């Protein structure tokens, strides 16, 4: 059943055309590189580089996180597909300023395969590459198997923190350490109520029974690990929070966190705010202090309906990084 009514041109050129549009919205601060990458202009010599990337179709990430004190560049795949190694290599060459490149991206088989091939090609050219995988989705594997977890909306605070770090650090070692810490301090969980559709086919990415919510749904529309009956925002909020607080990262009373309430596409700001309203007293009751709240569509899957919540625990070092101003199409902080 074709359900999509997308305002596009050639369905097979969406990834290229959206990138052209994105580059235009940087008004000269960033440029398109190679086949399908975006890279900041005027990166200083000697800067440790931060490269993000992944499949397109999840706008505004990843390429919308390219910016000042954020990612230096992004390698963009086709819709829902990891960027092939040649695209990532072109982006790697463009961001490299002599101090190595950190790859920071979501833990998906396709991304890992392709970024690893790109890292091998970069190494042949004498560019040192390290990798930190984002695996914040607590619903995708048990805490003992974090390397099997998917990366979802928690990538926004993680890339924000790593981007700030990349402008301060002097070595790839330091950037790798801080990005790893940001990753290890972040937990997310998502729900879906309706599938998004693939632009080229108009077909939904999955089926969900009417009246049900997919718990732990991935941002690529992978089926959730549990299906629960539809419920209210007030009923859903504690279910989601319990999944995060019940994981292995302790959120002690008095700790500071960044809270992200993310729309997967068509879930409205109204709904996000109603869920937000339910979350805040629950966090207060646990003594968890919200340092900053982000609410909106950051990591989407076309017109998929659903949302995710993410918590990033900030220690003194991470608070300094968080409080640095940054600017990009996706995320600006004064």
């Amino acid at each position: 059943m074709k359900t999509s009514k997308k305002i596009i041109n050639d369905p097979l050129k969406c990834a290229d055309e959206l990138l052209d549009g994105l580059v235009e919205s940087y008004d000269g601060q960033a440029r398109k590189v190679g086949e399908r990458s975006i890279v900041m202009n005027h990166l200083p010599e000697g800067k440790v580089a931060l490269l993000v990337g992944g499949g397109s179709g999840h706008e505004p990430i990843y390429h919308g996180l390219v910016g000042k004190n954020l990612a230096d560049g992004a390698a963009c795949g086709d819709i829902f597909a990891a960027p092939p190694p040649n695209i990532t290599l072109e982006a790697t060459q463009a961001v490299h300023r002599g101090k190595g490149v950190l790859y920071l991206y979501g833990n998906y088989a396709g991304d890992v395969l392709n970024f690893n091939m790109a890292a091998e090609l970069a190494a042949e050219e004498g560019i040192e590459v390290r990798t930190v995988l984002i695996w914040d989705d607590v619903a995708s594997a048990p805490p003992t198997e974090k390397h099997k977890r998917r990366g979802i909306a928690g990538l926004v605070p993680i890339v924000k923190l790593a981007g700030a770090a990349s402008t301060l650090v002097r070595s790839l070692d330091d950037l790798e350490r801080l990005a790893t810490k940001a990753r290890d301090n972040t937990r997310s969980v998502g729900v879906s109520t309706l599938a998004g559709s693939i632009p080229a086919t108009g077909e939904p990415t999955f089926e969900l029974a009417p009246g049900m919510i997919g718990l732990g749904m991935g941002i690529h529309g992978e089926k959730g690990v549990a299906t629960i009956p539809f419920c209210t925002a007030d009923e859903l909020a504690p279910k989601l929070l319990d999944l995060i607080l019940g994981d292995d990262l302790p959120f002690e009373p008095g700790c500071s966190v960044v809270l992200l309430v993310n729309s997967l596409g068509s879930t409205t700001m109204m709904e996000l705010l109603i869920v937000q309203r339910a979350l805040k007293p629950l966090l207060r009751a646990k003594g968890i202090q919200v340092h900053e709240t982000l609410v909106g569509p950051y990591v989407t899957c076309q017109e998929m309906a659903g949302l995710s919540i993410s918590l990033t625990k900030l220690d003194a070092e991470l608070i300094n990084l968080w409080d640095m101003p940054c600017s990009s199409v996706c995320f600006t902080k004064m």
Partner: protein
Amino acid sequence: MFLSVLHENVGCASRLRRAPREYFMTKNYLSREEVRQMFLFMADRIIAAEPILSEADRHLGDGDHGLGMARGFRAVKAKLESGGSEDISKVFGVVGMATLSTMGGASGALFGTLFRAGGKALEGRATFDSAALADFLDAALVGIMARGGAKPGDKTMIDALHPAALKAREVANSPLSEAALAVAAAAESGKEATKSMRAAIGRAKALGDASLGFQDAGAVSVTLMLEALRDYILGQAERPT
């Protein structure tokens, strides 16, 4: 039990049934130019199968496998239509680079590796015969297992490729037309067997038992490719010379 299933399937190829026995000629090898034509034939098959492959992926993945395969093989067509390469290994290399650099996703890296790693095993060969098919599939299997970390039984493309490679080695001394029949049938059986496997790697692994009953889309693609290889070779073999 498993092998007897394979042998039964060998007799089922529709092209053979349709071809009157007296017109059937064996085909012992493909020339460099025939390998190029075979890949153009395969590309058309894969592009036409886009909806089938995406549908296969929708049960276990995100439903875009056909798009990636079609994108890759449109690039293969564009590269190969502009002319041939000097040797067979390079034709496979061109197919590998075209798929690797345009498909993206896990399948781009893996199908790119299939043709690149497999093609390297054909260096120095002037023709593509049954022994070359066996060498190609062996090297492709080793390359893909090293790249992706999956093993037989994980419900991946390997579950079609592995039985195909074993069969190819077994029939490496047969005429190419017979070997291609047996190898495509082995891939088909392997693909069917993925229905009763639980996904152990990739996006589908999160589904656990819910992955039972569906065949792996990568295994479907591998089977389609080997069936295209078979049908091209049989088409050549049936042509009275």
